Structure formats: C-alpha cells, structure tokens
C-alpha cells in the first residue's frame, strides 16, 4: 500500500537523477539524443501502464494520442514559436481526444476495448495521412522549430541546442514520473487496481467504475500527448507513422519487458527497448528478427517483467517501516 521508497531505492533514484542531469556534460550528442528518446518512451509507457497494469485495460490505440500531441505541438510551434505553448497545446489536444474517444471506449472491456482503441488509433492515423491541408499528408509537418521556452514579459530561454532541449525533456519527464507515482499510490490508484481485479466487486463496493475508467483513459491520453509533444522539437518533423498501431506496440512491449506490476517497469522497459534496439541496429540490417528473439526471450524468462525480480525480493525482505 505504501508508496514510500526504501532508503536504498531513494538513494538509487537520486543518483540516477544526478547522472541524468550530468549526462550532457560527460557524453556526446548521440547518448543525449538516445536518453531523450528513452525518456519520451518512458512517459508514453507510464501512461499506457496506468491503463493496462493498474486498470486492466489493454489499449492498442495510444499512438493516436501520441500523434495528436505531436501534431498539436508542431502546428502551434509552426504558428507561434513558443515551446511552452506548443507542449501545453499538444498535451491539451491529446487529453480532449482521449476524453472524447474514452467516453465511447470505456463502455467495453477486454478484447472489445482493445479492438475499439485499435480502430480509433488507426482512424487518427488515417486522418494524419489523408488530411493533407492540415497535417501535410504523407510528407508530414517539416521545419518544426525548437522554439524558445518563454513566458512573454517574464523570461525567455533559448533551447535551440540539443543539450538545452534535453533539460526540457528531462525536467518534464521527471515531473510526469513523480505525478504518476503519486497517482498510483493515491486512493484513485487503489480504486483503479480494484477495478482491474474485479469490476463487478468494485461497482458493488460503491465505485462508479465507468467514470474511473474514463479518468484513467484520459490521464493515459495526456501522458501519450506529453510524450508526443516532446518529439517535434527534437526531430523538427512529424510524420503519420507515429500514429500507426506499430507505434502503439512500443509502450506495450516496453511495459511487458520492464514489468506491469512494478511502478518502474515501464521506465526500465523503455530503457531496455531502445538500448537493445540501438545495439542490434549497429550490427545487422535484420535487426527486427534479433530484436524479436530478444523480446520473446525476455518475456519468457521474466514473465512479470525484469522488475518483477526486484519486486519479489522487496516483498520477501522485511519492511523497514509500518504503513500508517
């Protein structure tokens, strides 16, 4: 029940955060770029796991909200070069899309929910592909600026350099991770887990199940939107494949690799997913085959995800504090 970290885990997290802040000082451009990709996928996967691991809803359409966040941010940045406005606009657009599609989706569960989200995700992909006037069609939106971070009249900070933009991604990702940690250890987090275990029992315990499912779906959409909104300033472009179902599969795989029942599972999974992919890509053009083999081996070898090992150890070890 307790969401407090043990002293050892807190020290490890603190060291990791310090290392991430020092990264641009000690590493070249590529590791910094890779770290940003990992952080973006970690945020995307955390939102996905709120739905899957905590609420019991497997969505195959999260790439749709990722794309809404990315296109929303890119459109704003192309019109008004203000990074804060772009990111907030992208997140808000994804949140609204998730709320609207969630109203239709959360009426169903299991495979019906998964198929509905897949269909909605692919609808967004089609819109990105076909609505050329707004989305640029298959060319996408190009020349998205890495606009300055500013509140007019208060401050302006240029983040045009990759190293500077890295700090924007890092800080926003850490805030998103902290907020999610609070959320899953809150009464809402417990209620969502109860719905995952037995929606009927939860309803008969007085929980308005559909309302809370919609809340989880919208929050997951906001996280997908944030991850998507961080992408255009990094890549300077947005193209339709980010809305494709294969992009939805990335947080699914990352979360399965890291572990659905550990809070840190999606974060560790995002790291494993992108590092393994990056390493294999260097050695063979048939990287997908080898990547597939490794993913299968990891999922079979660690059925609860890599982090399940540490979860089991933590459960076996006596706790150093009583819950209140």
């Amino acid at each position, binding site marked *: *029940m307790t969401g407090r970290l043990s002293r050892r885990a807190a020290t490890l997290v603190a060291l990791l955060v310090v290392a991430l802040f020092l990264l641009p000082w000690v590493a070249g451009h590529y590791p910094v770029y890779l770290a940003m990709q990992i952080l973006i996928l970690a945020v995307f996967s955390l939102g996905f796991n709120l739905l899957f691991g905590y609420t019991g809803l497997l969505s195959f359409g999260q790439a749709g909200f990722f794309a809404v966040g990315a296109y929303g941010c890119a459109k704003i940045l192309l019109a008004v070069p203000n990074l804060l406005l772009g990111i907030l606009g992208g997140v808000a657009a994804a949140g609204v899309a998730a709320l609207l599609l969630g109203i239709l989706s959360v009426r169903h569960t299991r495979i019906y929910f998964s198929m509905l989200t897949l269909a909605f995700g692919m609808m967004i992909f089609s819109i990105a592909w076909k609505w050329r006037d707004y989305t640029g069609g298959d060319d996408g939106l190009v020349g998205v600026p890495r606009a300055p971070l500013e509140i007019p009249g208060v401050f302006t900070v240029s983040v045009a350099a990759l190293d500077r933009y890295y700090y924007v991604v890092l800080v926003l990702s850490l805030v998103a991770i902290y907020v999610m940690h*609070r959320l899953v250890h809150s009464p809402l987090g417990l209620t969502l*887990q109860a719905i995952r275990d037995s929606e009927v029992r939860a309803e008969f315990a007085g929980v308005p199940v559909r309302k809370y499912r919609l809340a989880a779906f919208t929050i997951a959409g906001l996280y997908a939107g944030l991850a998507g909104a961080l992408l255009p300033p990094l890549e300077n472009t947005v193209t339709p494949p980010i809305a494709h179902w294969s992009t939805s599969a990335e947080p699914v795989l990352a979360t399965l690799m890291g572990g659905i029942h550990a809070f840190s599972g999606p974060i560790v999974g995002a790291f494993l997913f992108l590092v393994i992919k990056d390493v294999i890509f260097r050695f063979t053009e048939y990287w997908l085959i080898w990547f597939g083999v490794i993913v299968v081996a990891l999922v079979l070898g660690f059925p609860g995800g890599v982090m399940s090992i540490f979860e089991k150890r933590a459960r076996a070890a006596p706790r150093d504090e009583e819950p209140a």
Partner: protein
Amino acid sequence: MTDLLATQGLSKRFGDFVAMNGVTLGLPAGRLTAIIGPNGAGKTTFINLATGAHLPDTGTVFFKGEAITRLAVHRRIRKGLSRSFQIMNIFAQLSVLENMLVPVLARHGRAGIPSHRIERESAAIAEARALLREIGLSGEERLRAGALSHGDQRLLELGIAVAPAPELCFLDEPSSGLTPVERARVLDLIRRFSAERRTTFVIVEHDMDVVFSLAQWIVVMNRGQVLAEGPPAEIRENRAVREVYLGELA
C-alpha cells in the same frame, strides 16, 4: 413492518428461459430472511435484479419507498444496498487491508482522490482495520487477498459487503465450501452484524441447517415464482414446500 426493499411484478427472461416470473415480495427492515429453492428457482436472479446486476424485463424494485429499478449499481450501494456473490469475488491482487479500504473510501466519497498518498486517509484506514478486527483477519492485513484460505476469503467477502454500511445486505450462499468451524464463524458474524450494525440480511442458502438456525423468515422460490413465505416453523410444515424442495432432501 415497513418494507425496506419491495418488488412488484418482477420478471426476467434469458432467451426462452423464464428466470423470474412476476415476483412481488417485501423485505422488511430488521428481519433476517432466507431465500431457498431448488437449483434454477430464481434466487440469485432475484438478488441480481434487486441490486442492479441485471435489469428486469418488467416490474419495479423499490428501496425505502423509492423506485430504483433502473438506478446504477454504485448509486444503489450509496443508498444502502449491498451484496456478496455466490462465486468468490474479492480483489485478489490487493492486500487484505486494501480490499477493505476500497468500499470504505467509496462510502466516504474519497475513492477518486489522485493527489495524496493513501496513508493520509487515516480515518478510512482505521475504519478498515476495525472491520478486519471484527471479522478476525487483522493479522493478515498485509497478505495478498488471493493467498488467503477459502474460509478467510469468505470472511473477507462478508467484510467487503458490510463495509459500505448497508441497511440491506444480500448474501449469496455465504457458507458454501466452508468447514463446520468456518461456517459457525460466518453465521456468528452475520448475527453480530445484524444486531450491532442494524443491517438487514437476506441470505440465499442451500444448507438447511444454516437456514433454519439463522432465518426469522423464509421465502421459498420455485421456477421463478414465490411458492411460499413465512416463519421457519410454518415453512417446515408447508406441504407444497416439502414436495418441491425439502422433500427432495428426505
């Protein structure tokens, strides 16, 4: 006695099968009622229709005089209804304490708070722990509920059912699969909750020892209809009941 829950002409079909056929029944406050009948008589269907798990084809359900026929389940719970299930239904991955916290938080309207750690819900935690003490599971509060023995899971389910502080609680076969010792514990708890919390219990049960030792009033159902109702002594002597149901046991 004023009826706490009443049904009027309640009917339900599943395809060609008539599960409930125009049932009109009153369940007064403070009277421990048992619903009995052979398999397929409509006992669980009656609970499902009364608590909102299924909607009736025709008929009306009244709770405290108000029609609640189409009311959402969670709203019925807030009005004072509750139930347990024939097939075990607990939050298996959550701890025993968390199982109890879910209905307590929902009752206090605090189940959706996203901003602070659950440890800060000290009033709800204290209430959940008090309930665990009452049902005798306080020593297991950290254990995953799915790891409890069958008997302890039944106790936990009873705890979850009374945690919303219901005025009327349906228990669907509360003693099924229990050893005699566990069954005695469950029956004792039902009596205690009935007396101390002023919860009116309605049980569906196949075990006639349980029914006749616990119930103050018995409703006999057969083929989706009420065959007879009355005090246990009267039901025991009812010829029609003996023929269709009790006679089967002889």
